[in-house]
């Protein structure tokens, strides 16, 4: 049996291949990368019976149109986007059947930023350093998908397609509250620096998989010099001299020199990954 393929008819603003990324390679200068909204990516794989690390497509602000060479099952999760399979509207968050030669369209999500398209069997582009993820910082892994490109479907299944019509998923809040754990390192910020968090921040258009810039109250630094370069994690909230926070996301550099105010709590990270440019969010110390 020949494996099927997915033809990228239109990639939308940005569609990349993502899986669990490349953790553990910081000594080589390689970012962890991987799907930004990990629970949504894992749900998409579960819905089509894939192995938990099967590669999927991370679709930024919708707009993806793909054609399948043979029939199969797919699922769309994450940012709730309209899904049309072979001309028929389907609900997101459930297994969707696509006939051979069928076109699947993922529209612009009503909320959120990143939708995940899992294809039963997984996207089987060649792995690089143990992962198929596109790393937008370093260029490791497959380039963002282009119109006309054909990507292979693999055999990374772990069980049957989920016997559900759709998975219950909480709607994305209009103004998410992102919980942060402050970094207990005295001396770098003004005593009242956290007061700035009383108001919400706007997500800057200058936001990508590497980091999210926020616009709002200035977070006052007590010192203007840089910290000696230190290791970073996704969710670290850096405060450059401008006082406007920059939050590192999946493709963050492994070291950096701006002081860190705190780190986004793991349970809030998926919400952060779904915050789209122009929307507002709140940072709350918990």
């Amino acid at each position, binding site marked *: 049996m020949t494996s099927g393929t997915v033809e990228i008819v239109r990639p939308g603003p940005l569609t990349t291949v993502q899986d669990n990324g490349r*953790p*553990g*390679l*910081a*000594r*080589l*200068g*390689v970012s*962890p990368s991987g799907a930004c909204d990990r629970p949504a990516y894992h749900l998409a794989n579960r819905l089509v019976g894939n192995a938990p690390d099967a590669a999927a497509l991370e679709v930024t602000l919708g707009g993806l149109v793909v054609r399948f060479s043979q029939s199969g099952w797919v699922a769309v999760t994450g940012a709730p986007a309209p899904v049309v399979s072979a001309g028929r509207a389907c609900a997101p968050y459930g297994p969707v059947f696509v006939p051979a030669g069928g076109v699947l369209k993922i529209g612009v999500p009503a909320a959120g930023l990143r939708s995940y398209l899992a294809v039963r069997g997984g996207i089987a582009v060649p792995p*690089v*350093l143990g992962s198929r993820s596109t790393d937008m910082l*370093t*260029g*490791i892994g497959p380039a963002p998908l282009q119109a006309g490109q054909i990507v292979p479907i693999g055999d990374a299944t772990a069980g049957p397609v989920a016997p559900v019509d759709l998975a219950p998923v909480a709607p994305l809040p209009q103004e998410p509250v992102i919980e942060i*754990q402050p*970094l*207990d*390192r005295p001396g770098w910020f003004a005593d009242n620096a956290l007061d700035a968090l009383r108001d919400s921040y706007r997500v800057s258009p200058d936001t990508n998989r590497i980091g999210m810039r926020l616009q709002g109250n200035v977070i006052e630094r007590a010192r203007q010099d840089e910290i*000696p*370069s*230190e*290791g*970073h*994690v996704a*969710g*670290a909230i850096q405060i450059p001299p401008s006082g406007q926070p920059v939050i590192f996301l999946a493709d963050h*550099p*492994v*070291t*950096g020199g701006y002081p*860190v105010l*705190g*780190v*986004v*709590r*793991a349970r809030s990270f998926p919400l952060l990954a779904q915050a789209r440019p122009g929307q507002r969010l709140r940072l709350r110390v918990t």
Partner: protein
Amino acid sequence: MSLRVLAYGERALLIEVADHHEALALYDDIRREPPVGVVDLVSAAASVLVVFADEESAQAASSTLRTRSVPRVDRAVGDLVEVPAHYDGADLGEVAESLGMSVEEVVRRHEIAEYLVAFVGFAPGFAYLTGLDPALHMPRRSVPRTRVPAGSIAMAGEYTAVYPRESPGGWRLLGHTTLDMWDLDREPPALLQPGMRVRFRRVTR
């Protein structure tokens, strides 16, 4: 002396030390005997970041790491990598002029030193080398280049480095090497890793 361990989010601990020598020694020590659940270790200028798979492992390791101490710094030295260097960089003349020395003097001082990979970052395979002659310390260019060729040997502040791939950059270009700093077909792809020693060997034509 017990270690200064900071919770760096829920899944990581940042251990602050005096300098990159202590950081490398501690990095080696933790690599040899890692706490349960370690996913990644980042040795940096004056700290080691320990990243864990989950919050429970990070919390459990927090107290045990505190009881460790920075190991003796004069540990066994790392592998020595020799980098053939063509000293033909675009900034060589300007560097010599602002330091008030001849081009030959700049090259001699850069070539004679033995360097240590203090940490990596900025790009895959980009190693920050310490051991640069203090007489050569200069801030980075005020206007960074949009395009620095792969293999460029450069310096900024107390560091020297080789750009593994073409990228933007503000470091001062002293020359280039034909040695591949980053090669995905090699295991590991990065030629230089924390703790290794580096010498530049001048190539003349």
